[in-house]
């Protein structure tokens, strides 16, 4: 077990280094000048000497490799820099927004798992029926629909036409306190849209997997012992069908990050994923770089957790 963790981490270090190097190389070749950006309108009236002094102070006149090493050193010692789009330290922005992202995506994952297990098993159990065709067709259509389009459609139906739920944000515009009920109402649409947009492959996967296991001998055995149909499907077939699915779940973290970026943006959810877009729109390199690294870390952690869960769930792989 420990060896797997260490091996995975050993693979993660060069990956993260490569990502930082690539980001730095891109930023160094970018036509955007950080000094000009910092000065804004004042750049027109600032004398070249002052600009040069700022450059020297920020170390921008140093060789690129030295700048990269300094930046990497700062990152690893926890000095993440200043975000100019939020006018605050990067660390503060992330600490304030990360809990909201974790809350929303956590709820979405739970909803996605529970929903797809039920729907996928239903489709497999009634394979070939009208219900099965509706579910399979719906999953395919859902996979082709861009998640931001789905989110806008949900806003139109549930917030504009029916007026059941708020269209976005964390709380009502006027409120100054965090009322849990208010936040929960604002969470319903983003969480559901994120869960649904991520669930197509899972529904189809559960369906295929349960269909395959329903044909196995042990299921036939359970049936011949006269067990109830529900017991056979849920306790025998579904349980065996779930094993490979743990690893697949870990491999889906990149898609989850993508979905979170788009959903948080549409619903103005104040998480780190929507901050990525704001940072990108204002070319806020310090924040954007740290958020990109955070996304990469999430993927590495997801793969690691999936590996470990698989090993715990299936003792055969331990040896």
């Amino acid at each position, binding site marked *: 077990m420990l060896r797997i963790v260490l091996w995975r981490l050993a693979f993660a270090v060069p990956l993260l280094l490569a990502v930082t190097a690539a980001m730095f190389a891109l930023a160094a070749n970018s036509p955007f000048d950080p000094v000009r950006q910092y000065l804004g309108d004042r750049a027109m009236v600032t004398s070249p000497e002052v600009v040069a002094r700022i450059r020297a102070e920020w170390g921008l006149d140093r060789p690129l490799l030295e700048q990269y090493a300094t930046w990497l050193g700062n990152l690893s010692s926890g000095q993440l820099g200043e975000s100019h789009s939020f006018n605050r330290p990067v660390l503060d922005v992330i600490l304030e927004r990360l809990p909201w992202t974790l809350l929303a995506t956590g709820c979405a994952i739970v909803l996605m798992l529970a929903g797809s297990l039920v729907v996928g098993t239903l489709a497999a159990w009634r394979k070939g029926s009208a219900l099965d065709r509706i579910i399979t067709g719906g999953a395919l259509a859902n996979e*082709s629909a861009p998640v931001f389009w789905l989110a806008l459609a949900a806003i139109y139906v549930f917030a504009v036409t029916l007026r059941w739920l708020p269209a976005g944000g964390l709380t009502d515009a006027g409120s100054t306190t965090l009322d849990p009920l208010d936040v929960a109402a604002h969470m319903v649409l983003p969480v559901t849209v994120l869960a649904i947009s991520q669930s197509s492959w899972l529904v189809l996967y559960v369906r295929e997997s349960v269909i395959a296991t329903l044909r196995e001998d042990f299921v036939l055995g359970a049936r011949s012992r006269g067990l109830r149909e529900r017991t056979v499907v849920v306790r025998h077939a579904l349980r065996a069908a779930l094993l490979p699915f743990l690893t697949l779940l870990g491999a889906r973290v990149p898609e989850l990050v993508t979905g979170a970026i788009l959903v948080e943006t549409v619903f103005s959810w104040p998480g780190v994923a929507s901050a990525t877009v704001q940072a990108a729109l204002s070319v806020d390199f310090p924040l954007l770089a740290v958020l990109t690294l955070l*996304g990469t870390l999430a993927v590495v952690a997801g793969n690691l957790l999936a590996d470990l869960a698989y090993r715990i769930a299936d003792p055969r792989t331990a040896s």
Partner: protein
Amino acid sequence: MRTAAFVLVALGLAVLLVPPIFQLDQQLVDLRAAGLPPSPAHPLGTDEVGRDVLLRCVYGLRVSFLVGLVAALVSMVIGGTLGLAAGSAGGLVDRLLMRVVDGFSSLPHLLLGIFIVAMFAPSPVAVVVSVGITHWTSAARIVRSEVLSLRGRPFVEAAISGGASRSRVIYRHLLPHLVPHLLLAMVLMVPHAIWHETALSFLGLGLPPHLASLGNMINDGQRSLLAGNWWSSLAPGLFILAPTLAVSVLSQRWRDRLNPRMRSELAL
């Protein structure tokens, strides 16, 4: 299956033929006709400055399709070259390249794309580069596994034992067998590339705002959504959904037909 093929052909014809035949100005601003709901004159309504949504959708699909096609081509060239190199070199080169492929494919594509586009001004080139750089890994995997299986075939062994140079083996014997696989992978990649372009444009980071791409249209339209104008943001989405769904239905059928296990089940 037939419906899917029909949808693809119809959209293809619309994208190719509508602009040269009808010569309508998609940028025509008519403030008196702003924000009209769908009607016979404007089948999908008009947007907030009175431009016809259906016409702009066709133009948008044209732009998105072109960007998607070029981006898919770029990723095929990158992936094909690296896959060919890994498969034919073998050994340490192969293992190293495949590690790079593993690392790349585990990164969130949109996040990398956002980073690349953010560091450069919005332009079609930046979008194509960001899609191409993040999507080549599947092509590399396909080409590598195909090269590995081809290398063991008698005609390749015969060529090598006959003294053919490495480049001759690659160009004369391997490449012709790889082209169909690459083409199929590219067709499947185009909807994905379109999705990526649309997502970037929707976030305001993709194509410049004056180009009518589907993502830009959805981004523009979402402002009037709260006022009840659903057509200018939701209609362009259907033009992404329809071709993507059609391609995925067709490829699914194709896979089922190639899969002997499914065939025997159908016979049962």
